[in-house]
């Protein structure tokens, strides 16, 4: 095709660039919004937390920054990081490039949990906890069935994931059918679209512990995940207990997915597109892929959330945007030449 062979950047440089981009995206997100914060005021407010600075801004600005914008920025970064990490992990342990965080039913379980809580008119906390618990239980059920399947365990897991997911989707549809169409049904529909609007510190605190509990082991075990992509027998002859390692990785990936989905609703495509984007940048070796995927996911979701907040007068649910951006982007990725390994 006469394409110029582009020079591949070393991994260290890629991570450094991604990190700088992330910091840039965070600064941008602080400034943009219905209540704009100019750079000078932003710098002043941030510095005033460390040094004594004579305030030249009004109190509302500081309030917006710390109580509204900061939790939302942190949550967008964390959810993007978690969904990407989970997608990357699932793709490896299931030896399947099409795997995404919802492949073992974490999302459909969460959706059912949330819909059920809304149906019973519970408060937003109960919705979050119900989504989280149902998400974990759904994946536990999928693993339970997958382990009992005959033949290849990985295939058994994927198939039972598809089955249980569709079962819970049907259950969610039934809840929507019987929900009160004047208030409950819109609430369920809105939840299913996914949104980071109105993020509070409490939600952030609720999500951060399971997220850290999943992300840290995924980072520590990342080089081992490579060997699972070759199949159980080969992994075992290289000294790795494949079944145990896969179960640990799946539990961690599920934990971060459940935590993300329960506070943000269904945000699709991130967990599929970002891992593949990261694969193109740093290759398939999980030692490099996992960190790159995590940072890239954080940047991506933060930027998309800015669009969701600022594009129209009303907020666009972020799940709609990630699908709009994600699908064409994915097509671009798979048709582009020059795969890196």
């Amino acid at each position: 095709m006469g394409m110029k062979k582009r020079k591949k950047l070393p991994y260290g440089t890629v991570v450094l660039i991604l990190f700088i981009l992330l910091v840039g995206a965070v600064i941008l997100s602080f400034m943009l919004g219905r209540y704009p914060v100019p750079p000078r005021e932003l710098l002043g407010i941030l510095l005033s937390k460390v040094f004594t600075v004579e305030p030249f801004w009004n109190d509302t600005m500081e309030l917006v920054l710390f109580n509204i914008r900061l939790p939302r920025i942190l949550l967008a970064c964390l959810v993007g990081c978690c969904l990407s990490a989970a997608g990357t992990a699932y793709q490896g342990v299931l030896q399947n490039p099409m795997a995404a965080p919802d492949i073992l039913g974490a999302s459909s379980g969460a959706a059912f949990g949330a819909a059920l809580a809304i149906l019973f008119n519970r408060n937003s906390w109960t919705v979050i906890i119900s989504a989280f618990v149902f998400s974990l239980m759904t994946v536990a059920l999928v693993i339970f069935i997958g382990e009992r399947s005959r033949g290849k365990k990985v295939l058994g897991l994927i198939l039972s994931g598809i089955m249980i997911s569709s079962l819970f989707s049907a259950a969610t549809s039934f809840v929507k059918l019987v929900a009160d169409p004047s208030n409950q049904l819109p609430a369920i529909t809105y939840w299913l679209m996914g949104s980071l609007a109105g993020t509070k510190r409490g939600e952030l605190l609720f999500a951060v512990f399971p997220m850290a509990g999943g992300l840290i082991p995924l980072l520590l075990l990342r080089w081992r995940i490579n060997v699972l992509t070759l199949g159980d027998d080969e992994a075992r002859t290289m000294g790795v207990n494949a079944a145990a390692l896969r179960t640990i990785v799946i539990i961690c990936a599920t934990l971060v997915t459940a935590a993300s989905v329960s506070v943000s609703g269904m945000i699709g495509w991130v967990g599929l597109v970002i891992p593949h984007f990261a694969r193109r940048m740093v290759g398939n070796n999980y030692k490099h892929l996992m960190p790159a995927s995590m940072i890239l996911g954080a940047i991506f979701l933060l930027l998309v959330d800015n669009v969701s907040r600022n594009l129209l007068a009303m907020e666009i649910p972020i799940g709609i945007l990630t699908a709009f951006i994600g699908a064409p982007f994915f097509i671009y990725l798979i048709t582009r030449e020059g795969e890196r390994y």
Partner: protein
Amino acid sequence: MSIQVNNLSFSYGDNHVLKDVSFTANDGELMAVLGPNGVGKSTLFRCMLGLLREYKGETLINGESTRDMSARELARRVAYIPQSHYPAFNYSVFDMVLMGTMAQVSSISSPGKRQLDLADKALARLKISHLRNRGYTQISGGERQLTLIARALVQEAKVLIMDEPTSNLDYGNQLRVMAEIKSLAEEGYTIIESTHSPDQAFMYANRILAILDGQVLALGSPRETINQELIRKLYGVDVEIHSFKNDSIRIFVPDL
């Protein structure tokens, strides 16, 4: 390192796949395992590698039973070289070889300088250093097979078990891969390989294990085991045997 298999029997339900198989392979031996399809060669390997555990009898490595060994302990003694394959994701040849060091590295860390050096040495040993940064799925079948052999070398196990290492390769690659395997045996590795080619087994191996219906049919040197009768019993074909170069090569001509 020697590997000894004593009275190994294995069955899937009522199907007795292996019956009382016993043999020993010593340092520097290249043992070829012959037998028709479905005769239990793979099952035998899977038992020896600890992938199947519900077998009767035992596998000893330097006198130690493999039954009590963890996956990590066994991997440091016995390495498995599968047929060249296509994994779900494309790794660089170097990353693929480096995976052989899993058993030396703790679960929560990555390979260090020693492992990186081992991988580079193994690539050089198999004369494929120039493929280091190529994609594993983008090289030829013969090169993939050599990569998998390099991966087994960094595992630092002295017993290598190979599943039909040349079955998917063209003629030139078959000869090149077999020459490498033979030179590894001469270095002191104990190698057990399954093959469908009796003339190749005759040319390279110094011991033959012929298996039929899950039992040992013949065990011994190539010259005393590989003959018309063995070929007829194993494969149900009548052949004439022609010998060349002081009987270092035997060619089998089917009776048509």
